[in-house]
């Protein structure tokens, strides 16, 4: 059984991406008791799967390393991975939370020596690569994974692979009898930092994400660009492994559209501008990026980055909502059809690869949230009416990383206020 001490002075943070880690750390570094729960087997969330951040073109894992070091040094913080919140009852200052902990089949004895992965034969689509590559069914999620413990995929439990893994482990770290655990905790405040998910690209039928191999999402493109990704950092197109040098970026893929997401997802313009620079980094003057957009939303000093990209001779901007994508069967190329609204002329332009700048929708869409949580018309969480449950980061609004961490810091203070007031009321009694 997982033994955890929690009281109405404890803050529960749901989600271990950058917002959840930030909210948890900021509160813990103010001296508060915090429990951070993460559904996946390691922390970092979507940012761990990004190659670079705009506008500095720095690496997300740099900040992750700092946050992990803060977290390892902090005794006020308890982390539970593979854990989901199944219910929250009660009110501000006095919540009862049920948590469901799924088995990892590996305990904290694991030293990450990697012997189990050597003997497991089964391969599974790699969940940390958007299934773009395969990994052994005993795996360390990624090089920076924390906790630094392997994971056994549930599909091998009961097969010889699992037994072999157990036999290979010298440290008694593999526990094939692990079961789903359910625990209940008392907490004073809840921070929802459940993040976002990409809008399902296949729903945008004219773009053919489900029909054309060479139409990919902006998130998949991050993995292609990353030297640790499935192509070792080469921009190869999926259909034939050819170097993609003439790439189209389609903005508002799912966003700003009453048929899909009616909000603007904020990050996609900057993400595509950033990705044009991956193309430049890979091919220099030989690469070609075309950005199809409605408005380029590079707010505040991010405008500097837009200006820099505008001056880049390898990048073209077309003000147009692409109407349809057709496949050129012979070459595997894609032909984009639409009308350039600046001057109103039709185009049919050929590209090697199409990257859809897919919109952000709340990860919590499709998940049952506590009844007293208020969500907006897109599903983003506004918090509970009594302010005891607070939303942070991209769970609350489509935000970039910088704004998400700002939001998470604010959420941490709001959570502290809840437990402070609870204790003040108790003291007054």
């Amino acid at each position, binding site marked *: 059984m997982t033994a955890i001490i929690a009281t109405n002075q404890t803050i529960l943070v749901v989600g271990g991406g950058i917002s959840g880690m930030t909210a948890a750390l900021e509160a813990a570094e103010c001296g508060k008791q915090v429990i951070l729960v993460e559904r996946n087997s390691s922390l970092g969330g979507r940012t761990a799967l990004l190659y670079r951040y705009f506008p500095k073109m720095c690496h997300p894992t740099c900040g992750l390393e700092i946050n992990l070091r803060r977290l390892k040094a*902090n005794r006020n913080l308890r982390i539970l991975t593979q854990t989901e919140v199944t219910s929250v009852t009660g009110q501000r200052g006095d919540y009862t939370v049920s948590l469901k902990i799924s088995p990892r089949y590996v305990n904290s004895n694991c030293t990450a020596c990697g012997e189990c992965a050597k003997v497991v034969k089964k391969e599974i689509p790699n969940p940390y690569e958007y299934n773009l590559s395969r990994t052994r069914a005993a795996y360390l999620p990624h090089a920076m994974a924390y906790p630094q413990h392997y994971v056994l995929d549930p599909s091998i439990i009961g097969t010889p692979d699992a037994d072999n893994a157990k036999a290979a482990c010298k*440290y008694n770290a593999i526990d094939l009898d692990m079961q789903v655990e359910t625990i209940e905790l008392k907490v004073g405040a809840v921070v929802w930092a459940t993040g976002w998910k990409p809008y399902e690209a296949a729903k945008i039928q004219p773009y053919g994400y489900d029909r054309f191999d060479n139409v990919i999402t902006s998130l998949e493109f991050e993995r292609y660009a990353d030297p640790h990704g499935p192509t070792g950092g080469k921009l190869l197109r999926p259909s034939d492994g050819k170097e993609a040098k003439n790439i189209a970026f389609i903005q508002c893929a799912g966003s700003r559209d009453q048929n899909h997401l009616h*909000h603007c997802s904020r990050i996609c313009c900057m993400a595509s501008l950033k990705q044009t620079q991956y193309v430049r980094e890979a091919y220099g003057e030989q690469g070609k990026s075309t950005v199809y957009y409605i408005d380029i939303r590079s707010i505040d000093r991010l*405008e500097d980055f837009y200006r820099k990209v505008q001056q880049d001779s390898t990048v073209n901007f077309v003000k147009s909502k692409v109407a349809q994508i057709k496949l050129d069967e012979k070459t595997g190329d894609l032909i984009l059809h639409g009308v350039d609204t600046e001057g109103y002329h039709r185009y049919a332009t050929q590209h090697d690869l199409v990257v859809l700048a897919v919109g952000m929708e709340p990860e919590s869409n499709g998940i049952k949230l506590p009844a007293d949580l208020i969500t907006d018309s897109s599903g983003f969480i506004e918090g509970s009416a009594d302010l005891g449950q607070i939303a942070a980061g991209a769970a609350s609004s489509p935000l970039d990383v910088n704004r998400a961490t700002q939001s998470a810091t*604010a959420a941490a203070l709001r959570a502290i206020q809840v437990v402070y007031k609870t204790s003040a009321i108790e003291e007054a009694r």
Partner: protein
Amino acid sequence: MAEMKTAAYICSGCGLGDQLDIAQLSKIAQKEGKMALVRNHEFLCNPEGVQIIRDDIEKEAVTHICIAACSRRAKTEAFNFPEVAMSRANLREGVIWIIAQGNEHDEVRQEMANDYVRMGCAEIKKMKLPQGNPNHANNKRILVVGGGVTGLTAALAAAETGYEVVLVEKNNQLGGWAAKMWKRVPFKQPYAEPQETGLVELVAKVSSHSRITVYLNSTVAETSGAPGRFNIKVAQESGSVTTEEVGAIVQASGFSSYDINKLPELGGGKSTNVVDQAGLEALACKAMDTPLKRADGKEIKSVVFIQCAGQRNEANPDHLPYCSGHCCATSVKQAMYFKNANPDVNTVVLYTDLRMPGMGEDFYRSAQDKGVIFTKGKASRVDTAGDACKVVFRDLILDEDAVIDAELVVLATGQVPNAGVDLEAWNPLVTAAESGSEEGKQKKVEMQKISVLNLNYRQGPDVPQLKHGFNDSHFICFPYETRRTGIYAAGSVRRPMDMLQATEDATGAALKAIQAVENASIGRAAHPRSGDLSFPSVRLEGCTQCKRCTVECPFGAIDEDEKRFPVFNESRCRRCGTCMGACPVRVISFENYSVDTVGNQIKAVDMPDEFSERPRILILACENDAYPALDMAGLQHHVYSAFVRAIPVRCLGSVNTIWITDALNSGFDGVMMMGCKHGENYQCHFVKGSELANYRMSKIDDTLKQLGLETERVATYEVAITDNARVAKLINEYAAKINEIGMSPMKGFN
């Protein structure tokens, strides 16, 4: 503290026992490392192994331990002994995982492991358990400078968390710009209509709060001290000065509206029929939901909003190069003032990119439903001669010139931060004034008049500005990582922003201020080395008053006394060690990180002779990026030269050149320094560490020549945390180069 008793623990798990001669390592720890206790364990990180260490600490009074096992980044929960000083010899990620398998490598593998054990033992003997900053102070009050929405929100947020707040506002009332607004952009669904600002309620809450003291008509005349003990002189309009003691500061000094008079081509300052957005709010406040009237009393039937007026323009140095973010939504809101009062008013928004992210899209759509016309175009001129203005613009859709008549033109001008003194401009004046220039002195006095905080810091009176005059953080992941510890800029002085974001920002800044006072009260460091209890100490009798530490400290933590000796303000210090790296006479140190802790490791490496064909290469690696990259190279089994010996450093800025000369003198054949990217998009979390190291190393060439050594023997690299494969490649290339230039002639002279 009790007498030092050392112990080394050598793990044979994770294949260490298979690939290394553990007995030999133990012997080295005992004989050469002179450890009082040496123990081996086949699985040191399991509860049993950890218990052995714990027992030794409790029963054997062990005070200093060296754990020879995996990287210092691994198994941190198990090897957590805050009561003793600890070093970690990295035998797994640093040795067995990066050397090719096979017996032919046994010898070099063992030599490498032997050296890491020697280094770990050498380091621990020079370490002390950090005791926390002895000069910590306990004031937990928070100063908020500025009484606009940001300042009010920050003040209330801190007060509602139990902290006392002092709020200083230069005007005679609270509220800032928001007090002059008719309504605000919606921040809650349905995002369809302008909403009440809620300012009256906010001001009332702040004014009546028992934990908030408000000073109106007041400014900060001087700020001295450090987190936990800031001393603030509040100057009131009456001339009286009150002193307030606080522990941390939120700077919410806001923005000034870009001067409309700088836009004469758009009619700015030429006619009352051309206003900025603030001017339009004034008309709306007067009209109160009835049709808006111009200054001359005429009801407005047509209005044009010109977006990006004087903004997003780098070509004109008088304009703002950035986008102020809020203006699109503000114009949409203002267009609704017209449409809601009279749907027949012709309202046109001239824009190039309409920027209303998130749910702003719903608000934009609502305006379109109300009949607001959005035209993609760029205004070049506004003629104000007649009763109606003529707006001349390029229609970017039809690609032709066009003209619209408008009874009122609204210029959406941008936000200019009230950030105080720009230190880049300030520092040359200080240098001039110090060299006796009267002009310099005068200009300095003149410039200080715009200061917001009037810090009496060695490095200038305000918080450093990042870009375009804003006091922003340089870091994506850490928006509050300021360069002045305990002082947090929030709101439009940090970044151009709207009211919703300012509210969020203020709340976050209040948290950071609270965290700063809590950290200061127990003498521990703030971000990014949060929780670090070590602090810099200086041996003043050796100091030559060269001022390098006071100048180079990235956080302005060190002042100078009247004799120009450094005065350390530990609570302002972020423990990067830049001062230690800068000090030419090596009198600055931390308890657990000093010239000796690293120097001793360098000297502990066993040096094969000149004819052994086994060069030794020292790597000094930034602990945040390069060292993890080395670790992950191990995790992914990238093979690199077994001749390197890596030492993590807090920051490349903390590298003292004595380490380099020591290394070369003791026979190292080369030194690789691995730090973060520097330059405009620097990634050093201590701002200039890698840049300083690069600069210092450029000066080391002369030393090398004096020693008769090739300049290639010291090399600096920018290494990112993702460079796992690259770092192995760099090492191998460098090892090949050393092979080419040959072994160091310095071997055997010690």
